[in-house]
Each structure stands twice: as structure tokens, then as C-alpha cells.
């Protein structure tokens, strides 16, 4: 529980940091440095979990991630090749980091989606009952082996 709270504080602090700074063209590069400068992250560095992103064409991107990172952090820090993922850099103002979870994983996430997250999900393509924004899922030890589906980003707006 204590750990979970730490994580929560850590990730919300980071989002706030981004909110305050994003205007001066914070690039992905210094976004990364924001993440690694955090002391709480260093303390947790030893804790790793396996995460798999399954792309629409069936391709599986398997990666090892730090406990305490969000799924968006995982994509950015590992340079995973997912086109257009995380356009707003984790500020819950777009839905480009939409992921679909297995029902059992969805159920065991420590936090439910906020209204703001649901608002953004409502604009996503291929919305499901177990959809979440990757930037809002913080990895815990319990989520080791998590597998999420990344829905197709190519859609014909007129169809």
C-alpha cells in the first residue's frame, strides 16, 4: 500500500511537472530527462516487470519496464515503434495512447479511469469496455507480464 501511494504521488507529480513546463517546447528528450532525474524512480530501478504491446498487425513488442513507469513512459523510454503514440505526452488531452487490456488485467488495475481520462477515451477509435489510456496506467509489481493491445491508428474518417 505504501509503495502504491508513493507511485501515485510520483506519477501525479510528474504529470504536474509536465503541465507546468510543456509550453516551453519540452521535447521528448527532456521529457526523458524529467523521468530519470526523479529520485523516487532511482530507488525503484531494481524492480522490473515484463510488458508486451500487441500491435494491430499481430506484431508483439516485448519489453522490460520499471515499476512506477506508465505505459507511455515504457514506449518513450524504450523507443518502441508505435506510430503517433502519446501526442500530448501524458497530459490526458488526446487519446493516441489508447490501449486495450484483457478483462482480468483491466479489473486488477489499482485505479479506475478518471472522468477526464474517460472523456478522452470517448474520442478514441475502437473503444472497448476494457480500454484505457496508456499514460494513466502505472506499472506495479503485480502487473508483471501485462499484455496490452494497441488498436489500429489508421482509419478512414469517412467510413
Amino acid at each position, binding site marked *: 500500500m505504501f509503495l502504491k501511494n508513493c507511485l501515485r504521488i510520483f506519477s501525479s507529480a510528474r504529470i504536474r511537472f509536465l503541465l507546468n513546463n510543456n509550453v516551453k517546447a519540452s521535447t*521528448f528528450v527532456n521529457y526523458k530527462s524529467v523521468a530519470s532525474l526523479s529520485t523516487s524512480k532511482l530507488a525503484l530501478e531494481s524492480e522490473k516487470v515484463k510488458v508486451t504491446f500487441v500491435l494491430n498487425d499481430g506484431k508483439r513488442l516485448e519489453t522490460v519496464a520499471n515499476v512506477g513507469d506508465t505505459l507511455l513512459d515504457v514506449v518513450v523510454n524504450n523507443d518502441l515503434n508505435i506510430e503517433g503514440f502519446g501526442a500530448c505526452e501524458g497530459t490526458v488531452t488526446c487519446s493516441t495512447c489508447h490501449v486495450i487490456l484483457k478483462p482480468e488485467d483491466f479489473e486488477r488495475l489499482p485505479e479506475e479511469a478518471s472522468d477526464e481520462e474517460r472523456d478522452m477515451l*470517448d474520442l478514441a477509435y475502437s473503444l472497448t469496455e476494457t480500454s484505457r489510456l496508456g499514460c494513466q496506467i502505472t506499472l506495479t509489481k503485480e502487473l508483471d507480464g501485462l499484455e496490452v493491445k494497441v488498436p489500429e491508428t*489508421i482509419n478512414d474518417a469517412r467510413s
Partner: protein
Amino acid sequence: MSFMGIKLITRFYCSFENVVPRVCIVGSGPAGFYAAMHLCKKLNNVHIDILEKLPVPFGLVRYGVAPDHPEVKNVINQFTKVANKPNVNFYGNIALGKDIDLLQLRQHYDAVLLTYGAEEDKTLGIENEEANNIVAARNFVGWYNGHPRDKDLKIDLSGTTAAILGQGNVALDVARMLLTPIDILRKTDITEHALAALADSKVKELYLIGRRGPLQVAFTIKELREQLNLPNCKTVWREQDFEGVSSVVSKLGRPRKRLTELMLKSVSESSNINIMPGDKCFKPIFFRSPNKFLTDNMNHVTGIELTCNRLEGDNLEYQKCIATDEKEFLDCSLVFRSIGYTSVKVDKDIIFDTNGFVTNDKGRVIEDNVSSLAKLYVAGWLGTGPAGVILHTMSNAFLVAKTICEDLKDCKNLSSKGGFQEVRKILLKSNQSHIIVDWNGWEKIDNYEVELGKKYGKPREKLCSISKMLEIASS
């Protein structure tokens, strides 16, 4: 320096390849950049030149996204990564149809992709629409966002009551700019001229008028929630507009359902609302279409004559509105027209359909084939119509870029095209001192604006003068 090196090496290397396809993208907004992103990812070898009418990139991300939504602009970082790729070039201050024509681009490239969006606003075509203080939302947005075209917008904010015609996200952006406490706006990159005018604004009652009902609103839930949560602003609905709505909510799809539920919640709260002195009021009205504008002897708008509508059709979300004989009058001294955007035919060779979009199939512009010319494509609002959020434009741009990749791969006999070298010759031939702003030039403007912003305690103060931009870019 190292960048130049990489670029030179790439060019040198490429000259040994068979032929590297050259793609020209016209317009550097989200559609253009997302298409470039996909092309770079899917093609091992491609040259991409992004042409832009203004000296600065990013289109509506810079000039459309509201100043109090800086998070949405974070996507600029992804676009900047694309622009920094050695095989991608940005060339600003080049207008299609004016500095260069489409035929010329198609002679010198292997594929030409039009992504120049929809820059004009739709008009109503009703009496007195040209009266003073009837403002196109598009120009108002451009004004507070520092678009050079709109810097001298005439707007009188000295009246207390204003109305917005239209119920989309642009309408809600306009409302938020008028109703947000000025000290919140001060910290954004809103232009100084707009900030000064809004600080003196007397507008405290703002109507948001839609021709259809609550189930057909075009704005999205995030924007509504923001509006409902604005400090010192109360939302007042007309309860009768929501008759029968609660009984159909459960039949709606999730997005529409949640949006409608939020409205219903606010309606029930607004019945016992307590409006404090100093509060501003936001008043959505449904089932009303403007019939004509009323004016005084100075040709200044004084009100709107509205036609009352009823809805017909079985599909609740897509009901059509039918005018009744009933009329209603609304007094107001300022009106915003926010009923949508429309694209401009910038070149005689661009063919539009009756909807005002460029006719296309998955981005391929439908036309009689002229084999010696580059194939023509369209993405973003110019091809889909002006609707949707950045995600939808991203998705469409990826789709069209995929089409281009397929066509380029199929194309066996590409001949070597001159690309931008030829474009530059054409530009300089007609005007020897034509300034082309490359990415380096934009970075200079960018730095200048950020520095200027520091003076005002803002993340950026945008330059609104094209000549000043050009001066800084070429310094």
C-alpha cells in the same frame, strides 16, 4: 554543422541509389506532419519537402488550439523530430497558387500531397451578416492566437451580451476565451493585443445558439466539462430544451451518452443556481436558427431574429431540423459565427466536390490520369472536411501516407525529379529576393518568441508580422 553533414552524406549516398522518390507536402499542420511521419517510417528512401504558406510551421496546432490548452500543443515535439530527420525539409513562406502552381510541383516531384486544411469560415448567407461586430470565430481564434491575417481584427467588447452561433468545439473555445478570468489567460501564450482587449471586455452574458437539440451538439465532453468548471462563471440552460432527453440517454452510444449525462447533470444543478455579482453567465440555447441580424443606424449589430426549429427523424443523433413559423428575438451587441470551416481553392487545378472537399479515394485525388505528372493526394481537413480532433487527422494522414507508399512501391519507372531545387529556381525567377524560411529559420523565430514571452511572463509571445518573422529568420 553535423546536421548539414548528415544531410550531405544522405544526398551523396542517395545519388547512388536508383531513384529516391521525392514527395512534396503542401501545408505544415498536423495532417502534413503526420503524413511525413508515416512516410519516413514506411519508406527506406524518400525525400520529403514540406511547403508552408506562412514562415512558421504547425498550422492549427499553433493557430487553432486555444492558448489555455498548451498540453495539446505538445505534439509539436513529435513534429519537430520529423522535421529534424535528414531526409525531411521544411520550406516556409511559399504559397501554392501564388508563388508556385500545382502543375509545377507535379512536374518536379513524384508525389504531391495537399494538406493545407480549411482556412475560411462558413457563412450563413442571411440579412445584415456584414454588420459591424459580427465576427467569424475563425478570425477571433486567429486574433487571440496571433495569426498575422487576424492581428487587426475589429471587435468591440464593450457590450454586456454576446452570442455565438454554433455549438462545436471552436464555439466553446471562443466562449472560454471570453469567460475565463483574465489572470488565468495572462499565463498562456495568448497574444498581448488580445489579452489587453479581453482585460477590458464587458461581456458577462454569453449565449451559445444551436439549430438542433442537446443530442446533436458537436462539441466534445472535455470542452464542455471545462466550460462547466470555469471559475466565476455559471451555466444556465433552458430546461424545456431537454424535454424527453433523459428517457433516451440509455439508448445512446458511450460518448454521446456521457456527454448528454453531463449536460443533464448541469441542467438539474442550474435550476437552483445562485448567480453572484461579478459572475459571468454562459447560456446554451437549442432549436434556434438565425434568420437575420438586427442593426442600429451605425450598422452595428443589436440583436438576432431567430427561427424556432423542431426535429424530425428516427435516428435521434442524426435528426434533421425543420423550421417552424415561430420567431424569437435575442438582444446582443456582439455575435460570433462559428458554424464550420471551408477550404479555399488556392490553385485552378484543384478539384472540389459539392461538399467543398477535394474529391478523393483513400487520399488519391480522383482525376483524369496524366502519367507524366506526379500523382496527387489529399489528407486532413482538405480531404475529409473540417471536423474531428487531432487524432482523427492523424489517422487520416496515416491512411493517405500508406496509400502513397503503396503507389510509390508499385511505381517501377520513376524518373529523377528536380524537387525543391527546381522550385527554388521558379521562386527566385519571379522574385529574386524571395525569402524561403527553412527549419533553421523557424528555430530562430521560435527562440525569439520564447525570449519575448519571458518579458511578459508567458511561455511565448507570438510574432504577428510576417515581415518581422522573415527578418528574424534570415538574420
